[in-house]
């Protein structure tokens, strides 16, 4: 089999890359090792409305629910509310990712991409030193696909970068260990996504409730890998459920790892571009990565088409992708990483103090920058190290 571009991984990043490259005229093959795209889910499914609507034409069945905003709880129970349009990347829609991921793969196929499921990339092929394709296993049979350019969209377990010489192995402090239940409970707030802070709830992370309608919600938590031990995420989630949703009925279980390393040094090398979780493009503070993966996918797909028509698949030929993703999402990721590095060191008293000072103000019309300025005004000592990011 021969093509212009191979996309490894059929998540949101891969599908958007395959779609963009096909629309730009490339012959694209997208490999997905699972037999069913999108399943099992490893996600809380929250995304911002505005950005998602800019990226694709939505199908109603992709959306489980819409929320008005976010409510944040300090360890002592004090809460603040932020409206949806001010809450950033993960608040707005709660998706049905099993349907959404498959829908995006369908868009890639409709744009002309060949989608191969139950097909796992095993390694890169090389000819005279240059990358010339991917060796794969397709429903138990070996398959070689030739192409001069590869996009690695293979998620948190990415190997494409490592095969090509980009070390994307995650250090324990750079990944959150997560567990989540889909819960039915009469006490679920259907209008707000909720975030619960506290070192007893989720050390160097947070717990969440993302409502999916009909009194169902994704209730989960993530803890920093360096503070995790075997089975800790699931254990803490059981404890949180008991304390907060004692009557909740669990109808589904999700676990996963979410990168939070900040921007990697390079997401490109000769013949290869990495997008999404494979390039650690998740927001390190919130863990949100769907929209970043999709945006990076579009950029990589477009740059792939240019590189193929220019005949230059070297790292230099792919530099436009590197520049564009850093500009569009990398800066925010870097900023969030600095906030995360600060956040993971806070004790419960600090968090109570910070949220307590916001609870006294009318923040309903404020965006994040405005809120940070208020926080700084009331807590200059605590926030001194973040001064340059806030003012």
């Amino acid at each position, binding site marked *: 089999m021969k093509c212009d571009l191979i996309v490894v991984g059929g998540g949101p990043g891969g599908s958007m890359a395959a779609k963009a490259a096909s629309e730009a005229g490339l012959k694209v093959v997208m490999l997905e*090792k699972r037999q069913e795209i999108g399943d099992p889910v490893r996600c809380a499914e929250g995304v911002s409305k505005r950005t998602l609507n800019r990226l694709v034409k939505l199908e109603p069945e992709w959306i489980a629910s819409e929320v008005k905003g976010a409510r944040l709880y300090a360890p002592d129970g004090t809460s603040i509310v932020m409206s949806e349009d001010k809450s950033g990347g993960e608040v707005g829609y709660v998706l049905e990712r099993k349907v959404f991921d498959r829908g995006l793969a369908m868009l890639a196929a409709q744009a002309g991409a060949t989608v191969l499921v139950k097909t796992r990339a095993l390694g890169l092929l090389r000819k005279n030193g240059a990358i010339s394709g991917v060796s794969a296993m397709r429903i138990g049979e070996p398959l070689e696909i030739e192409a001069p350019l590869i996009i690695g969209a293979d998620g948190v377990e990415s190997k494409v970068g490592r095969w090509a010489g980009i070390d994307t*192995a*995650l250090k324990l402090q750079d990944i959150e*260990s997560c567990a989540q239940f889909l819960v039915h409970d009469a006490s679920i707030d259907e209008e707000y996504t909720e975030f619960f802070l506290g070192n007893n709830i989720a050390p160097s992370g947070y717990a969440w409730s993302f409502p999916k309608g009909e009194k169902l919600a994704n209730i989960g938590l993530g803890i920093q890998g360096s503070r995790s031990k*075997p089975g800790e995420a699931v254990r803490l989630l059981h404890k949180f459920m008991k304390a907060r949703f004692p009557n909740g009925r669990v109808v589904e279980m999700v*676990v996963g790892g979410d*990168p939070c390393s900040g921007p990697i040094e390079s997401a490109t090398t000769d013949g290869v571009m990495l997008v999404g979780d494979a390039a650690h493009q998740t927001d390190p503070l919130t863990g949100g990565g769907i929209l970043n993966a999709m945006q990076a996918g579009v950029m990589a797909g477009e740059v792939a088409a240019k590189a193929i028509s220019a005949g230059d698949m070297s790292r230099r030929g792919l530099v436009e992708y590197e520049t564009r993703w850093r500009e569009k999402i990398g800066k925010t990721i870097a900023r969030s990483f600095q906030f995360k590095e600060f956040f993971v060191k806070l004790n419960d008293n600090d968090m109570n103090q910070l949220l307590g000072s916001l609870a006294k103000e009318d923040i309903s019309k404020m965006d994040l920058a405005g809120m940070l300025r208020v926080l700084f005004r009331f807590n200059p000592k605590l926030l001194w190290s973040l001064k340059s990011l806030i003012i």
Partner: protein
Amino acid sequence: MLTVNRYKCCYCGACVGVCPTCALELVETWLEVSAECKECGLCTKICPVGALEVNA
């Protein structure tokens, strides 16, 4: 030796992402451990369900 409790594993791939030697491979629901494993134990710590163990 690294052992995988396949009755516990939820095949999420977090362990694959942290393995410094690329010794793990998730084949849909089946986690494979290769001879590259150095028994460093990083993967056991990240596993949300506690399906991995390094035994002497």
